């Protein structure tokens, strides 16, 4: 089973906090991998907020290929971050890769002053082209290409990987960090199957299987959006549903919950937005999930949330203080990340609930689908 560890704070913090929290939940995961997405970056990237950052892994050949492609596309590298690898730490399970990288680029000529949507389109196209370039040979893995965002993924024990990458050395910090402690060991281990999944500012990680994966995937791929691809993990659709409902359809965040776990007809009647909700339920019927899933994610404005499927539920708890909240699979993870908090205020979302941490980690809102 996956274990999830998300922290959002008004101050920059180290991803090692997430990893240590994951480590307290070790009985619940098999220590087979680590996926990290950092958003609202500090450390080396604090002054590079306007530049898109390409995160990934590549071989020596892959790096050459990648650099050639990027310069050919007109991207100029402004910063090259690599982890300061600890030679004394245990190696990742599949050995050390040639390059773990996060490269910040200047936009190509003519793109710098274009609207964000155009830039996002370019970044997505570029990432997909790089993915295609290196996928067969596995010479290039690119996880995200977006401003103010870094992604790091590797196979192995999360704590050992944290030490291996020296995640506590201050070069990599952020105000929102999502961490997940497992590769997709139900099937062949493959880096593109590792959560969290990130697309144009929207990100989710999930604990659980997704029984409705095929109909959801077929619906998303039919939307005509090039970023709805991959699906090496059945959990990737959760990130894309978030992207689709928020960015493409423009729905408020709470409708993400309404789409994935739709209310029954009589429950809809009690909502003020019943007419809209009924239409949404019909038109987005294939996006309904049946779980078991605990989903944690964030949106471009810095909101972080947690929700559950409507029946089977996976562990999930939110706790903290204004200014710092932890969204974890288990309470021990929250204890590790934010020990000094009022535990009576901790919140475990159930069937109808959504835990929403406002941007800047200012407050925890407990929203229910049954709210009129």
């Amino acid at each position: 089973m996956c274990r999830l560890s998300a922290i959002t704070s008004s101050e920059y913090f180290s991803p090692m906090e997430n990893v240590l929290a994951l480590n307290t939940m070790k009985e619940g995961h098999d220590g087979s991998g680590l996926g990290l997405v950092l958003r609202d970056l500090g450390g080396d990237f604090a002054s590079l907020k306007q530049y898109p950052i390409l995160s990934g892994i590549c071989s020596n050949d892959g790096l050459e290929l990648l650099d050639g492609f990027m310069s050919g596309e007109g991207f100029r590298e402004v910063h090259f971050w690599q982890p300061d690898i600890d030679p004394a730490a245990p190696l990742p399970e599949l050995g050390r890769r040639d390059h773990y990288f996060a490269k910040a680029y200047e936009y190509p000529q003519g793109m710098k002053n274009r609207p964000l949507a155009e830039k996002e389109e370019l970044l997505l196209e570029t990432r997909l082209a790089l993915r295609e370039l290196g996928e067969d040979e596995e010479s290039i893995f690119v996880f995200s290409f977006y401003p103010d965002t870094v992604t790091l993924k590797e196979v192995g024990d999360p704590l050992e990987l944290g030490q291996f990458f020296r995640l506590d050395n201050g070069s990599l910090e952020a105000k929102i960090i999502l961490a997940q402690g497992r590769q997709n060991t139900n099937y062949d281990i493959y880096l593109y199957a590792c959560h969290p999944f990130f697309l144009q500012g929207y990100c989710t990680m999930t604990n659980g299987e997704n029984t409705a994966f095929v109909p959801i995937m077929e619906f998303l791929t039919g939307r005509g959006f090039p970023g709805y691809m991959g699906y090496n993990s059945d959990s990737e659709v959760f990130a894309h549903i978030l992207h689709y409902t928020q960015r493409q359809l423009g729905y408020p965040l709470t409708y993400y919950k309404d789409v994935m776990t739709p209310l029954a007809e009589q429950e809809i009647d009690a909502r003020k937005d019943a007419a809209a909700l009924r239409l949404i339920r019909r038109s987005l019927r294939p996006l309904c999930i049946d779980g078991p899933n605990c989903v944690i994610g964030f949106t471009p404005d810095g909101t972080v949330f947690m929700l559950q499927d409507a029946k089977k539920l996976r562990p999930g708890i939110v706790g903290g203080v204004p200014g710092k909240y932890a969204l974890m699979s288990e309470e021990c993870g929250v204890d590790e990340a934010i020990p000094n908090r009022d535990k009576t205020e901790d919140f475990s979302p159930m069937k109808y609930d959504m835990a929403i941490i406002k941007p800047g980690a200012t407050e925890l809102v407990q929203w229910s689908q049954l709210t009129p």
Partner: protein
Amino acid sequence: MDPATILDQNHELSLKEFPYIVRWRDDRCTRCGRCTAVCPVNAIEAAPHVHRKVFSEGGSPTPKATREIVHVVRQVTDIERYCTGCGACTLVCPNEAIEPEFNSRNKFLTYKNVGGVPFRRGGRRNDPTPSTVDQLKFTRISMLTDPALDAGRHEFRIRTLLGRNLPPEALPLKRRGDRLVVGKTAVRPASSAIGANQSEPGFIPPVREIYPIRIGSMSIGALSPHMWEGLAMGVAYLNEVEGMPVVMCTGEGGMPPRLLKSRFAKYFILQIASGYFGWDEIIHAIPEMTEDPAAIEIKYGQGAKPGDGGLLMAYKVLKLIAQIRGVPEFVDLASPPTHQTKYSIEEAVAKMIQSMSMAWGFRVPVYPKISGTKTAMAVLNNLARNPYAGALCIDGEDGGTGAAYNVSMDKMGHPIASNIRDCYLDLVAQGKQNELPLIAAGGMGKTGNLAANAAAMIMLGASAVDMGKHIMQAAAWCFGDEYNRCNLCNTGRCPRGITTQDPKLYRRLDPDVVAERVVDVFKSADVELRKIFAPLGRSTELPIGMSDALGVADESIAERLKISYVC
């Protein structure tokens, strides 16, 4: 000595040629005559046999011969009076002295086409082998990584949508604070991938939430009054007492005016077919209708007899039927094979859908029903571009009928499984699989596995399934099977009283009992559907297109349907 003309039996058939041979036991028969009276085709008759007995009395042989006449029950060898195997004789026999036995080596079809008239019958395709749908299994069982649901404890919403769903991009929603409200135009312009099929802003097609198993089109006329009434009562009970939104289709010929104007009209799909029977009455009743019908089905084809029309024989057109259909009594009512006033797909489909929609103020879903065919996708794509089309119903080759040529039933048509799958995947490729519901018909429950067949079709991509023959078998215990048993629906002499207008026959059927059995069928199917969906881990919405749950032990079927091959 008998003359040669009598001895010449060259022009008689032997019983071996017949599909059913009546086994009669002299020692058990009391000669009560019930079997010969009940036989709907007079295949058996009381007959005298002359028995010659030779006996001898006394110490030395003195043989004497006597002749005596005994009465027997004899099966006739007239091909027009062949035993259909219905077994009504067995049912009425007090001593188990008689039963028809299937003769697998019969040469019935070789001899039946007499008088230049090919064999006609009711029923469905005579092929007892399991259909493709029946071979599909549910192989994605939720286990430790994904606990199964509890069919008895969890909430299941086994419902589907009948009617067109707008693509999400075309929904007329606007944001008001942190809530969405319904506005007059879509929240954002449709993306390039979708949107081409958008109707004018503000039109939200009507959609009904219904139970995914429906009772398919069977008309008053084809069915006896008791049978139709039983079905209708069962459907009303399911809706109003059990809370299951089951709908049934009227078939061609309308429905009783009182029912049409009642609050129960919403449980019925009105069918319009090529004879337009009953529609003058329906149109005139619209101002007095208190509820909209569930939907309008435009019948272009029927799986059992593709490209063939219908015929309600004159002797079935009794007073009630004549009134409902708006025709004189006792005249043949022929429905042509196609809608005679239409000649192109644009006219036949688009205009008719629009006309019917307009009749109810665009408040009722309107959809066409076609027979399974290789060209289904051409129809599908026309409908996909038609914002008023509410669904597409495809009736596969295993569908039943009250009357058709045997050749149409046995040899014409398309299996439903690949037809639906192709259509669904075509819609997936266009991103429209949730917009236009597909309804699968033809052979659902053919071997009694109604829920499994329905679930398999849903996972192949159908939004709902129709059943006809199965509900007749399950609710009225129709004798018909795929060994050409009974199949007398076309003669008006249905021994169960299902497809007859003869009061002596349909009084055998108690409409209350039919209604009870209809309810039983749906409640049982509902439990079985939960027993299928729960282990697959699905409960909230119907698992339409969840093809990863399906497996089949036949590589070619697996490849064709794009599902797993399992063995």
